[in-house]
């Protein structure tokens, strides 16, 4: 589904790599947390999966596409198989909930009939069935994030990328969002979520990939936000990562 082969990403303004020799594989149907301090490379990872950036070194395969050689003309069609959710929602303020979700389908050329059917469905699924005619500023943060999630999944993507989707929300609301993401994951969608929310990661018991300074220092099935084993092992792993 997603495979990184010794991927490094260097930004021209910064001599330190944002990602340093990262190799990993995420398979279909997984729910993966990406954790690490700010600047550890989580967002760079997501941007690389989205093909907003090209890696400086290494190969990336997503959904059977080799992203390093994918022509920029084909990038839009590739992105139709991915859904993305952000911390700041990124809704269009002058469009209603329904139109915000419908907009994604319109711009990729779906028919009116399809939109009329798919949008109410997905809004019902995220729990906003009664609020289709509202504008974003009339909604709470949690509801706005649900609209953003609806928009991301309305086209039934194989992968959902979430960049700190609960970063702006209180814990109770966050829990609701996580339940929703879990439901989406149960439907077969691979979910990759970058987060700082220790409580969520600990309670969900899913695969956790921890990045420090652009390197993977931990990749645990059913992990927590902090490593569950002895803290010293973190340093040991980090050291061995350097040696590779």
């Amino acid at each position, binding site marked *: 589904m997603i495979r990184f082969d010794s991927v490094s990403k260097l930004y021209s303004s910064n001599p330190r790599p944002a990602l340093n020799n990262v190799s990993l594989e995420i398979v279909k149907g997984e729910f993966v947390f990406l954790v690490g301090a700010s600047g550890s490379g989580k967002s760079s990872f997501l941007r690389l999966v989205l093909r907003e950036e090209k890696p400086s070194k290494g190969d990336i395969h997503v959904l059977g596409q080799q992203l390093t050689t994918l022509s920029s003309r084909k990038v*839009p069609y590739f992105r139709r198989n991915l859904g*993305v959710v952000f911390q700041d929602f990124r809704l269009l303020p002058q469009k209603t909930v329904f139109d915000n979700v419908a*907009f*994604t389908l319109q711009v990729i*050329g779906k028919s009116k009939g399809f939109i009329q059917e798919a949008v109410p469905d997905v809004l019902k699924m995220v729990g906003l069935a009664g609020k289709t005619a509202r504008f974003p500023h009339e909604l709470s943060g949690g509801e706005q994030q649900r609209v953003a999630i609806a928009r991301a999944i309305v086209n039934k993507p194989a992968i959902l990328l979430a960049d700190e989707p609960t970063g702006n929300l209180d814990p109770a609301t966050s829990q609701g969002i996580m339940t929703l993401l879990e439901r989406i994951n149960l439907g077969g969608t691979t979910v990759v979520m970058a987060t700082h929310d220790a409580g969520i990661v600990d309670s969900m018991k899913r695969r956790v990939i921890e990045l420090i300074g652009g390197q993977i220092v931990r990749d645990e099935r059913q992990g927590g936000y902090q490593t569950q084993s002895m803290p010293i092992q973190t340093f040991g792993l980090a050291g061995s990562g350097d040696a590779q």
Partner: protein
Amino acid sequence: MRFGLVMGEAASGLRRNISMVISVILVTFISLTFVGAAILLQLQIVQMKGYWYDRAQVAVFLCTAAESNGNCSAQEATPEQKAAVEAQLKSPDLAPYIEKYEFEDHALAYKNFMAFSGDSAYASFVKPEMLNESFRVNLKDPDNADVLIENLSSFAGVQEVKDQRKYLDQIFDILNAASYTAIGLAVLMLIAAVLLIATTIRLSAFSRRRELGIMRLVGASNRFIQTPFILEGVFAALIGSVLAGGAIVAIVQFFVRGYLVEALPGATSLIGLGDALLVVPVLIVLGGVLAAASAGFAINRYLKV
């Protein structure tokens, strides 16, 4: 459906940027009017050249009793002198250059004069013998007039050898200068128009950057994203071009046909409405293509994936 969406996006962009759009319209309007005027002037020159060069002859004016300049001494050219000139025209020196020549005697000269300005105030004072007799020479290549002038000017009984094109060349020089000035102004204005369109489009893209970001994120194709912006530029420029076309037609209709034709009754070969209608599509295509190119360039730089 998609077509409607693209048009809707373009329309909302136009509405949002209305002041910039109006300035684009005005600048393209004025610049294309200059382009059109330059084309019309060139058409006018070509038309006049075509008309007059066919008729322009080298005239070998012979002396009359009233003239004392040139080789004349206030004496009518004698038949011997005429024969000598005619012999020279037939000689192998000049014959290869000459297509045909004819002799215009006093009677014929008077007839032509009366036909052209018979109704003028001084016509009644003119007598046939006051008008020069002349050989009217049509050359194979009008550019060789100097050969004739050099060859015949020194003949006895010849007052003057004149290339009639010399009169016209002055007029053409003036028209040419005017059309080059118009082209120069047009180029400057077109550069301004192109830059203005690019700026307008970039502004429009900036005001819609949220939508653009989402469009790119969810996989709208580049063509779908660009088209509304290009349409926006093309639409504004097309309005300007149509206005410029209207101005060109109006200039020809009211100034050239309505005024100049009255004011210059002798000028038989002025451009007409047909020429103006020929220029209009050129302006519209030029406006559209320039706008599409500059808008496309502007939005492309904004959209680099």
